[in-house]
């Protein structure tokens, strides 16, 4: 375990060495940002709307007491979505979508000797292949989480309109009342950390792939599993530190 951690840290150090040519790395970062950000908007939209709607309906169901104002459903759904569902569930989905793609892409380059070709040319392969992916994920996952929060709250509103469990006016009042900006800060810090974990862990798994197609698949699976576990652990750590 310690040797794996050591190799991971050394790989990260190599990844953030001074680039050979900044413009090429910048282009790579932009390309990865489009791939991670735009490419993930569809799946993030779908899960966010449904989770937002389901959360609102479940909270409304549990608030059956006439002594509790119905607008509380909006407040609870808002905080649940901002603090937990949008950053964590979105990141777990992104670990599957983006992380597996990173691990399999780098793993395939390893087994087809493309990484060797880069090294022979004198290119710092971890820097060229991994750093742009980590930077792109650290920038795009927070933006996707903001997008997800907005859609989750919209999903909650749609659920109120469709089911009538909570009136849309009560829901909107609940969403506005008692809003604490720190919840957004916590969500963004989580997203930033999760973005780093997804890209770095999956890149590590891909970079040290050896063998053939079977091992590339195994690296992708391991990358997703390890990054999901680390996302949940980091979720607990950030929550306990910031709240």
């Amino acid at each position, binding site marked *: 375990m310690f040797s794996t951690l050591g190799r991971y840290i050394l790989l990260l150090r190599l990844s953030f060495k001074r680039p*050979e*040519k900044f413009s*090429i790395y910048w282009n790579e970062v932009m390309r990865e940002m489009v791939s991670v950000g735009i490419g993930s908007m569809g799946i993030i939209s779908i899960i966010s709307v449904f989770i937002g709607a389901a959360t609102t309906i479940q909270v409304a169901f549990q608030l059956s007491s006439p002594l509790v104002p119905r607008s509380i459903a909006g407040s609870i759904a808002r905080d649940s979505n901002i603090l937990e569902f949008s950053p964590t569930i979105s990141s777990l989905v992104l670990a599957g979508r983006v992380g597996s793609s990173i691990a399999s892409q780098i793993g395939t*380059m390893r087994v*087809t*000797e*493309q990484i*060797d*070709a880069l*090294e*022979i*040319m*004198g*290119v*710092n392969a971890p820097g060229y292949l991994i750093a742009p992916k980590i930077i792109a994920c650290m920038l795009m996952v927070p933006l996707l989480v903001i997008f997800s929060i907005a859609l989750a709250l919209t999903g909650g509103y749609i659920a109120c309109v469709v089911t009538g469990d909570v009136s849309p006016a009560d829901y909107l009042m609940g969403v506005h009342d008692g809003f604490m900006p720190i919840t957004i800060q916590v969500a963004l810090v989580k997203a930033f950390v999760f973005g780093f974990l997804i890209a770095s862990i999956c890149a590590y798994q891909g970079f040290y792939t050896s063998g053939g197609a079977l091992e590339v698949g195994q690296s992708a699976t391991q990358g997703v599993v390890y990054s999901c576990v680390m996302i949940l652990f980091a979720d607990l750590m950030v929550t306990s530190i910031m709240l």
Partner: protein
Amino acid sequence: MIEIKDIYKTFGENEVLRGISAVFEPGKNNLIIGGSGSGKTTLLKCIVGLHEPTKGQVIFNNENFTEMDFEQRVPIRKQIGMLFQNSALFDSMTVEENIIFPLNMFTDMSVSEKRDRADFCLERVNLKDKNSLYPSELSGGMKKRVGIARAIAMEPKYLFVDEPNSGLDPKTSIVIDELINELTQEYKITTVIVTHDMNSVMGIGDHIIFLHQGKKAWEGSNKEIAHTDNQELNDFVFASKFTQAAKEKL
């Protein structure tokens, strides 16, 4: 010139290379031959720095490559071109982008200069007008030729070739061999080729090293190989009835 001194390489308990020394001169096709598992590719990877030798030295023009770190190796690596067994072209890039890649990384050439260089390299390997194709759209022989074009893009002093004929038909193999030979002679490149193709050995083997069980078992030229009394080499080179018959005619 490349000099290797007493190279050992061990993977765990398995000693793959056992004290190999040789000198590879410019303008010559230096062939490393041997049976499967004899350590040919491991030796090539030790020379280019993809594997670190357990013991021994690799010297490029009096510079000890083995003792250098990654940064110190970069100037030498810029002078190295390598053709991999499976070509190792970047699949996400077109043929032209593959060739331009090292130029983008290490030169300040303008876009038109880089395009001209790519066109020149492609013309040199008889692949004119294939600039916009992706590696998946190329045949095995074409991939090898693009690999060579990429390898010569930076005008290398050293060319390393791993199994250039694997997976190719005999006619295409000869074309690739002739191309490597022409480039070696024309630009006075120090070329090191790992192969077990007998046509290559007999056709372009100016200097041949035969590896057997991780040791250098024989060294000479293609003219000398037919008359050697080295038993392992004879068993390897003249393994088929066809080559035996050819030897008897010599």
